[in-house]
């Protein structure tokens, strides 16, 4: 057993877990954060993507013990109260989901992608960056549209913030 402690969605959490506990199981079963999904056994589908210390990672391919001491953001930590995060809003607006199973991972991958490309995104980049996220329903088209739209809204928002600050 290991004593793990981490910050999840801004909240300090800790617990004693078996060393083999995957981060995704710690999130889902110990913390009840079931927004993060498990879609495969092979680390390929991306349904489990969360941010660990600010970077997108597959929570099914990491032990909770490895994550101890880290800061984790899950899909539950994105919205600001009742206000959806711009990426969530764009998925809704552009019908970027059907069954919704892949959506939490898609959105966590998308927010990470947008953060790493403050200069903006194009379709080819978005498709290449979605390499590790599989969707069985949408055919990706509307997911790509939603991410491109969110990237635009977010860069506008950060520019106007910068203007205000100046």
């Amino acid at each position: 057993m290991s004593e793990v402690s981490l910050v999840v969605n801004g909240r300090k959490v800790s617990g004693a877990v078996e060393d083999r506990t995957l981060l995704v199981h710690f999130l889902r079963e110990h913390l009840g954060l079931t927004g993060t999904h498990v879609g495969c056994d092979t680390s390929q589908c991306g349904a489990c993507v969360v941010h660990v210390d600010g970077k997108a990672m597959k929570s099914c391919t990491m032990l909770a013990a490895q994550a101890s001491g880290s800061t984790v953001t899950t899909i539950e930590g994105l919205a600001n109260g009742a206000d959806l995060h711009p990426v969530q809003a764009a998925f809704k607006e552009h019908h970027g989901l059907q069954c919704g199973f892949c959506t939490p991972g898609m959105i966590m991958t998308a927010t990470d992608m947008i953060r790493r490309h403050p200069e903006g995104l194009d379709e080819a980049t978005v498709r290449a960056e979605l390499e590790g996220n599989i969707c069985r329903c949408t055919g990706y088209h509307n997911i790509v549209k939603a991410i491109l739209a969110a990237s635009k809204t977010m860069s506008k928002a950060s520019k106007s913030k910068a203007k205000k600050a100046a």
Partner: protein
Amino acid sequence: MYSVNYHRATSVVDAVKKIKTGDAKYLSGGMTLIPAMKTRLAAPSDLVDLNHIADLKGIKVSGKTVTIGAATTHFDVANDEKLMKVCPALCALASHIGDPAVRHRGTIGGSVANNDPAADYPSALLALGATIVTNKRQLAADKFFKGLFETALKDDEIVTAVTFSAPAKAGYAKFPNPASRYAMTGVFVTKGKEGVRAAVTGAGDDGVFRSKEVEAALTKKFEASALEGVSVPSKNLMADLHASPEYRANLVVVMAKRAVMAANA
């Protein structure tokens, strides 16, 4: 996953001490080892996590000499500005390993220690004539990679870094397997002081190897046109449900052409 005990190493010395517990294994990015443990293909009794050893992380470039710490992630190799100036081909290679989440955790040390016959880095290190540095010794890439998932590493030996002298020209091209993105065939070519080297991954049935035919043609002229009409024997190439040895033999030449074009660009 079977039960396992997790240990966090604070230094290389500490890791070597901890690896002596039971049937322990080193854990770096975990992008190969953890999936293998989940499917019970690997079942170590203990894991010694190398991620918190500061000495194993980071990239140093001094003149043409490049040293990359074993626990440096694919993401950090892909985006390192100093490395980009002296060997952009290695940054490009790292930027096409798996997907963004895999690149945020997977490490160069884990990749070379694992020596997957379809992994990208082994071809680069062999073509760059790199040296693999461990806690015990320094090994030339030619001596380090031994076959399918086999290296010269002893059980408790840790890869601490890889180092090489950046060649005048280098390029990599891979034909990714459409499902896994691992190389169905990948070729890394270099032209430096010691001549031309071309290493092939994803194709050999004994792992990464240097192609004599490609090297001979490119030594005459380091241009894609030099590979026109060159053929590589399909004997000793891999056969699986994705491609026959003959198909891979052809891919070696096609990927070598693209790699040379990338190197000359």
